[in-house]
């Protein structure tokens, strides 16, 4: 037990450096983490509840509280909640504030990407005694792509095309690196995991528990059977080609086509549309591609184009939910009070809208966020599972040792183990279920009518019929009136 405490102290000291806060004591992240670990789930649930009931302002207040935004020092303590807040600011049309948050988030993401070994190891030790919610939120690839995408759209809406261009270049760069990043990251994690498991085994062996060698392997194969019984089958889940988010690529193309400064910009636009129409097989991407190619070849003058693209951000992305299973830990003794583990699983959210329609043209899905999150989760899950099993064995061995010497303390340790067993279900939940798009010719009317099965009455949008317009609609559910922004270029 002394060892466990010492180890925990070490982990506390180490994880201090991993804190995203600045100037705080090294212990602050863990102390807040202890509180945070047990309430994270309920806060996420509360946030979802606010969104479900249409209380966007309360959801924003909650996100700001959790993000621990320090306006004076311009610091965000929690990346995930910062992203939730920034997305709501964007929804509310406060682009400046939204981008201020997204900028801070990008700094944190950069820190996570380049986190050094000592910090990472410290975090892992802390989490091996507790659970994954003690780790800093590590952004998924789709998170980072969306941060730059939202920033770019915010800048475009503000009319700041120079900065929008930088953000589109960043998002494009992230997309380009996504496939490499995945291959590399997964290999790295597998190696690190194997090494950690090896070290755990050695530690357990040195404590005289010879049979623990097989524990991880045996438990892993048993766990897989249990997962199959739970109906968790990820075999059908697959990523878009190259792990890209085609919505981001589509908007990238639209920006470079409509604000083209030279032929290189038009080339970028054509490449983006080609990629999206190849992946999604949609008419909106193919038609926009054809248009971009005509402009590129000089057949059509950019100034003579007079279209409106309507973009829909519909519903909510699949969310992670916790499920607990009894783990068959193959220990020599059954002298333990609690052996269980908690794992995350993806739960699809309902689609309230079932497509949109403008002037007889139906929207098409240019990016299915459920598909994207599932593909990335599928890659992560084996690592989450191995980590959870290793962790459960470490905790259970500790519990058994305490129980052997003192039954009351053992009982207490069992309760502690149960309390610290929690799945990491953090996701950027305000992201939509799908991104949809359609393109219509401007018919001289300054009002556009958007209809959907999920809308009680058609939405009426004012556009500039003399310009190209991007109408951006975010419709989460039936309790929140769809937010509409019009960007005329």
């Amino acid at each position, binding site marked *: 037990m002394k060892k466990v405490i*010492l180890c925990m*102290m*070490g*982990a506390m*000291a*180490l994880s*201090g*450096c991993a804190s995203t806060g600045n100037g705080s004591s*090294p212990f602050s992240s863990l102390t807040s983490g202890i509180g945070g670990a047990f309430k994270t789930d309920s806060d996420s649930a509360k946030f979802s509840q606010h969104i479900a009931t249409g209380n966007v302002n309360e959801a924003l207040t909650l996100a700001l509280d959790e993000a621990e935004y320090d306006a004076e020092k311009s610091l965000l303590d929690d990346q995930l909640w910062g992203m939730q807040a920034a997305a709501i600011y964007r929804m509310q049309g406060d682009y400046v504030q939204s981008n201020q948050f997204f900028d801070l988030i990008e700094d944190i993401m950069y820190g996570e990407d380049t986190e*050094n070994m*000592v*910090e990472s190891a*410290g975090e892992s030790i802390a989490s091996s005694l507790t659970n994954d919610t003690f780790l800093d939120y590590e952004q998924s690839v789709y998170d980072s792509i969306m941060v730059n995408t939202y920033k770019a759209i915010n800048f475009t809406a503000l009319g700041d*095309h*120079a*900065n929008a*261009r*930088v953000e589109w*270049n*960043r998002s494009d*760069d992230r997309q380009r690196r996504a496939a490499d990043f995945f291959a590399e990251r997964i290999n790295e994690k597998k190696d690190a995991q194997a090494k950690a498991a090896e070290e755990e085994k050695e530690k357990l062996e040195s404590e005289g528990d010879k049979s623990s060698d097989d524990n991880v392997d045996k438990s892993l194969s048993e766990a897989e059977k249990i997962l199959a019984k739970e109906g968790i089958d990820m075999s059908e889940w697959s990523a878009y080609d190259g792990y890209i988010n085609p919505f981001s690529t589509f908007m990238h193309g639209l920006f470079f086509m409509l*604000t083209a*400064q*030279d032929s*290189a910009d038009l080339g970028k636009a054509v490449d983006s549309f080609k990629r999206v129409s190849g992946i999604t097989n949609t008419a909106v991407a193919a038609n926009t591609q054809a248009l971009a190619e005509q402009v590129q070849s000089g057949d059509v003058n950019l100034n003579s184009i007079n279209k409106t693209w309507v973009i829909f951000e519909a519903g909510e992305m699949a969310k992670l939910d916790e499920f607990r299973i009894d783990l068959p830990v193959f220990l020599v003794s059954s002298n333990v009070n609690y052996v269980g583990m908690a794992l995350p699983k993806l739960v699809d959210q309902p689609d309230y809208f079932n497509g949109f329609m403008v002037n007889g043209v139906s929207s098409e899905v240019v990016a299915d966020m459920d598909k994207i999150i599932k593909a990335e989760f599928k890659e992560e899950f084996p690592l989450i599972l191995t980590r959870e099993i290793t962790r459960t064995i470490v905790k259970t061995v500790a519990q058994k040792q305490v129980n052997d010497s003192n039954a009351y303390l053992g009982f207490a340790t069992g309760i502690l183990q149960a309390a610290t067993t929690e799945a990491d279900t953090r996701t950027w939940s305000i992201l939509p279920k799908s991104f949809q798009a359609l393109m219509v010719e401007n018919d001289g009317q300054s009002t556009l009518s958007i209809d959907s099965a999920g809308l009680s009455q058609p939405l009426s949008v004012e556009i500039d019929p003399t310009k190209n317009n991007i109408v951006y609609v975010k419709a989460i559910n039936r309790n929140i009136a769809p937010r509409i922004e019009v960007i005329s270029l």
Partner: protein
Amino acid sequence: MKKLLIATTIPVLLAMSGCQSTTKYVSTHDEDTVVMGLSQRDFEAAANQALDEIIASPLLVHPEADKGGRYILSIYNIINDTTQRIDTDQLVKKIRVGLLNSGKFLTTTAVSFTGAGPEDSSTAKSRELQDSSLMNQNTTKKMDRFTRLTLA
């Protein structure tokens, strides 16, 4: 006890070394300091290079230079097509000042052929004063006062 001491000291040392800050100011002229990616110095060097080449170009010498003839240059905006936020207007300004200081050119902010307009918008703004009732119209710039540009 010794073990306990070692076990607690190492993590604390690691924690302290991990949090150590080494931030300090570095002169933009200090060539010994190299940063990852592009820095202010790279931009200055690029602007200086462009400037030197324009000034040295024999094609940009006005045929009546000895009688005080000067070409008037309109400077395009520099498009920042990188993943970094760079104030390219500062670079344009640097080039503009360098061109004027060379004594070989005049520059204009009255016209620009790129979307965002010239980096110095005062000419455009002063034109708007032509319709302002708050200004003495005898002192505002008139539309017909600009020199016609020839495209070389």
